[in-house]
């Protein structure tokens, strides 16, 4: 009976909504954007807007590049040269491509120099490295997490620690993966990644951009001070998040309650805007570029605009081993970890962070 009950249970999820103002000293928006490392999809919506400004358009077109390299041996990411060239000089991000976090071995590199390996039991034992069981193990431990601090290793390359890791990756259990890579740095060395991994056939990619306008769009009425909504006067943050999902999924927003097919409708109260601009960028997008987009969207209201608010949503890679910072992330039923900003014309903002069952509470 207990098994049946457990099978019928729906895994828990968490939605954290908070509000603040971009001008506040203690506003955490920068930290939360910068510590969400592996971003797959960034989209924004601007009501009452038919054409994108030049600055925004440029930013949207410059969210890349990112890189794709196949069969890269893991030991290449711990060499002295790699650490000095990329990890120490800017923010280097890496994530294994087409590895499912709940089934396969997955590796990620964070910009603070931490190399995170999420390994199945056999691989973990074969590498001979020190790790810990996954937080989301059931009775049987299926996954182990190994965290290697490259900054710490590079301080002393003759150390026993470095020798052990090097031996493990080169001889004991040489692992190879297809990787997504990105490197954010100040400086003009644009194709450094390309030349460094040229022997592995590295490819440069640009994120895909989809731009569209929606006409006669029903938008919820919001009040920046009322995160939970106000009956009859403003919608709540969770309602806004649902509505945003419906818009980006092209769902109908004005179904009647007795409609046979769907009863979903835009939360009330709502207004109809003549047009709205939607933009979606997909790829391997670094937080630094997202921060620039966020800042530019804040500046949208420097001049008076009809729009009362704009939104910026970011979705993480479902198969990343981390969500925010080094918080372990698991897939369970959906692997979602996403956040959404609602930027108001008075520089107030709402921030909603959503995670699934195999995740810690967002920071």
């Amino acid at each position, binding site marked *: 009976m207990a098994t049946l009950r457990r099978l019928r249970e729906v895994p828990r999820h968490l939605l954290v909504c908070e509000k603040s103002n971009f001008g506040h000293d203690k506003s955490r928006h920068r930290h939360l954007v910068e510590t969400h490392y592996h971003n797959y999809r960034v*989209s924004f919506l601007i009501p009452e807007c038919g054409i994108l400004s030049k600055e925004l358009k440029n930013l949207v077109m410059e969210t890349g590049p990112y890189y794709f390299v196949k069969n890269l041996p893991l030991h290449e990411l711990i060499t002295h040269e790699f650490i000095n060239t990329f990890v120490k000089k800017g923010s280097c991000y890496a994530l294994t491509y087409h590895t499912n976090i709940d089934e396969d071995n997955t590796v990620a590199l964070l910009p603070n120099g931490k190399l995170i390996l999420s390994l199945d039991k056999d691989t973990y034992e074969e590498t001979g490295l020190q790790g810990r069981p996954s937080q989301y193990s059931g009775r049987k431990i299926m996954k182990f997490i190994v965290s290697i601090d490259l900054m710490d290793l590079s301080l002393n390359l003759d150390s026993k620690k470095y020798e052990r890791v090097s031996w493990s990756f080169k001889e004991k259990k040489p692992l190879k993966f297809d990787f997504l890579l990105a490197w954010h740095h100040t400086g003009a060395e644009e194709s450094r990644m390309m030349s460094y991994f040229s022997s592995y056939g590295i490819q440069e990619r640009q994120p895909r951009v989809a731009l569209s306008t929606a006409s006669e769009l029903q938008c919820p009425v919001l009040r920046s001070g009322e995160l939970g909504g106000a009956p009859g006067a403003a919608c709540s943050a969770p309602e806004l998040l649902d509505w945003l999902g419906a818009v980006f*999924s092209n769902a109908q927003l004005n179904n009647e309650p007795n409609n*046979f*097919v769907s009863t979903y409708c835009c939360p009330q109260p709502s207004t109809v805007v003549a047009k709205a601009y939607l933009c979606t960028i*997909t790829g391997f997008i670094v937080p630094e570029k997202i921060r620039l987009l966020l800042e530019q969207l804040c500046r949208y209201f420097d001049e008076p605009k009809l729009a009362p608010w704009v939104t910026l*949503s970011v*979705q993480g890679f*479902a198969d990343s081993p981390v969500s925010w910072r080094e918080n372990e992330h698991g897939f369970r039923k959906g692997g979602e970890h996403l956040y*959404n900003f609602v930027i108001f014309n008075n520089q107030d903002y709402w921030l909603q962070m959503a995670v699934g069952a195999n995740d810690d509470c967002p920071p």
Partner: protein
Amino acid sequence: TSRFRRAKQEPNVNIPGVSRAQGVASAGELRALAESCKERDSGRRQVDAALPLDILTYEEKTLSAILRICSSGLVKLWSSLTLLGSYKGKKCAFRVIQVSPFLLALSGNSRELVLD
């Protein structure tokens, strides 16, 4: 008043098999199909079958849809769709691609990023 608890689930369902048959022509047919398979699987308890279900989107080109069900009905809907083998006498299969309580999460699927 909201008919669903806050923890509502929104599975995204792909039905490629039906394209080989006559195909589900509209969202309305898909809704009827989903209701009938729930009825069938709940046996004699017809009252169980009456779970509020919404077809939020339906794309004929890709034969994929986004369904919305309350969290207490998720397992029933998911298992019913998975076990459905034929529609109007023709063979078909449902494949659930994504499940999430957040509709926004269904507008993008990082597992669908294709680079090679």
